[in-house]
């Protein structure tokens, strides 16, 4: 079964005065129809940029997709003309951004912001668009949608705005939705509702979902597969549960230990990953995590580890991990 979308060796750089920021430096991943994958990593590791690259929304003139292919339903999106790409956005692939507070046009009613996409892609009239918008708002759980479509964003709470963003994203029944940290800004109770909502909708419409987050707790529960990113590269990917329980890369392990776990006794102290992510302009030779890695071996400094299969359907880019010993894994499981 070929994947709905396949990103092959994507490179997206930012040309700034200080030098070239290699935000996405040779990333490959794929998503099957109806499947949900998670892109995980600290902020600034390139997960959002890779998503924006799919939609070719990288902020010009600084940002530029240098190399790679993005095959979506058999077509390489990078080869499409602007016009053809524009037809894809919103219709085939849509995105839910992180900050609902600033991602909605403050001077346009919520209804119009939902119906806009419909008017273009499904050439509905504004009236029909608004009716559909009301239906969508109802679908995403907003009370009295017929009245609320005439409200402005500043009359919605943070959670409701994010629901509106979801409504916008699913308006044209896209085949792929990219959710860029959809729940980071809202509080935890709303977070769970939103994620349940997204999951139900993607299941109902058989939509593929790329869930971008730095919260591993979400990954285990909502994603089939997970890709861990660090400094512009994918350093580990595999089935969500495998990676969750048997992390094959010290960074992933570090992520897991820095998050409180229900199934752990509360006595253990949380161990943060020391230091800062490297500056993407002056990446070190060898493994970019070696400066912060407790298990680094001399080879790590010399050579960049390739992404190899270290367990069935479980890949990792780490010299130590390929030697079958993973001291960072807990004995008990």
């Amino acid at each position, binding site marked *: 079964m070929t994947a709905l979308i396949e990103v092959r060796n994507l490179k997206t750089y930012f040309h700034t005065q200080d030098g070239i920021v290699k935000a996405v430096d040779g990333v490959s991943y794929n998503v099957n129809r109806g499947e949900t994958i998670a892109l995980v990593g600290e902020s600034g590791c390139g997960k959002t940029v890779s998503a924006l690259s799919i*939609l070719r*929304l990288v*902020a010009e003139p600084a940002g530029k997709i240098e190399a790679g292919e993005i095959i979506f339903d058999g077509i390489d999106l990078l080869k499409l003309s602007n016009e053809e790409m*524009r*037809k*894809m*956005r*919103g*219709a085939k692939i*849509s*995105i839910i*951004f992180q*900050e609902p507070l*600033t*991602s*909605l*046009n*403050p*001077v*346009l009613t919520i209804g119009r912001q939902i119906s*806009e*996409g419909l008017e*273009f*892609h499904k050439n509905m009239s504004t009236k029909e668009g608004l009716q559909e918008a009301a239906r969508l708002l109802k679908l995403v759980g907003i009370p009295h949608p017929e009245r609320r479509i005439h409200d*402005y964003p*500043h009359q919605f709470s943070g959670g409701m705005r994010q629901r509106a*963003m979801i409504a*916008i994203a699913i308006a044209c029944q896209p085949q792929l939705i990219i959710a860029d940290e959809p729940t980071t800004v809202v509080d935890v109770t709303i977070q769970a509702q939103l994620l349940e909502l997204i999951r139900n909708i993607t299941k109902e419409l058989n939509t593929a979902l790329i869930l971008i987050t730095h919260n591993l707790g979400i990954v285990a529960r909502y994603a089939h597969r997970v890709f861990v990113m660090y400094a512009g590269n994918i350093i580990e990917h595999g089935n969500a549960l495998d990676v969750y329980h048997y992390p094959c890369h010290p960074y992933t392990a570090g992520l897991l230990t820095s998050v409180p776990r229900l199934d752990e006794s509360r006595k253990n102290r949380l161990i943060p990953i020391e230091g800062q992510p490297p500056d993407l302009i002056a990446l070190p030779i060898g493994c970019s995590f070696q400066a912060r890695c407790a298990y680094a071996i001399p080879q790590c400094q010399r050579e960049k580890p390739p992404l190899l299969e270290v367990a069935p359907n479980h890949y990792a880019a780490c010299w130590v991990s390929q030697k079958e010993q993973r001291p960072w894994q807990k004995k008990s499981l």
Partner: protein
Amino acid sequence: MTRYAIRRILWLLVVLLVVSFITFSLMHLVPGGPWDREKQLAPQVIEALNRKYGLDKPFFVQYGNFLLGLLHGDLGISYSYQDRGVTQILMQGLPITATLGITAFIIAILIGISLGMAAALKQNSWIDYLSVLFSTIFASIPGFVLAIILMVVFSVILHWLPTGGWGSVSQIIMPAFALAALPAAFIARITRASTLEVMHQDYVRTARSKGLLERVVLIRHILRNSLIPVVTIAGPEFANLVTGSVIVETIFSIPGIGRLFVQGIFARDYGLIMGSVLFYAFVIAIANLVVDILYGMIDPRIRYD
């Protein structure tokens, strides 16, 4: 919003009253009167003239008479124009000045906003530097120099357009462009500055992520959010254009009302001064009222509680 507009109209009357009182007192405080001429008039003649035009009455009585006249829409008579009524003079010249002013305003808005947005969207590109050059030139050359350059090029050298006067369409073009130059440059730079603030906002990225036509993104998402400062300055610029410019009307000999204010002051023609000052104050106050109303329409977050 209509309740707010009505309240503002009442306040407008207060503003006009204050402006009229300030102007009336300034007029009488300023040295030189309407009857001072190179060849001094005999004192009894000056007395007779003062009596004829009611200038011999105490200050507040004169001001009272003026206000009474205003109620009937009569702005008094002009001494320097064979006792023609000021209201009549204004009404006669207004259509001409207004036509010219509105044409200039449209040109200014068209050039200003399109150049401003282009300069912002293509920051530090050739069109951005063009907009800087364009606005600097039209701000550093005073109106009268620009007017004469246009006249030399299009009338004297190319013989395309008449040098001035009024009546045919060809006599609107040069004055309209001369009038529109500075406001167009100003609007262009203001649009650029505010568009720069808006175009990096997240909702613009959301709009593009919905696959909307670029034109729609530009107008409905970017322009609409960057209009506030543009509208703010467009209001007073419109008022200035519609009430006429001394310089352009003098050089292109246009029989509008642009010159009345300055002529009135230099001739100490009290009727003319009051008429032109109040007319301008009225137009600018209305323009600012419209701007405030537009605020509410453009940005729903702005409300006048």
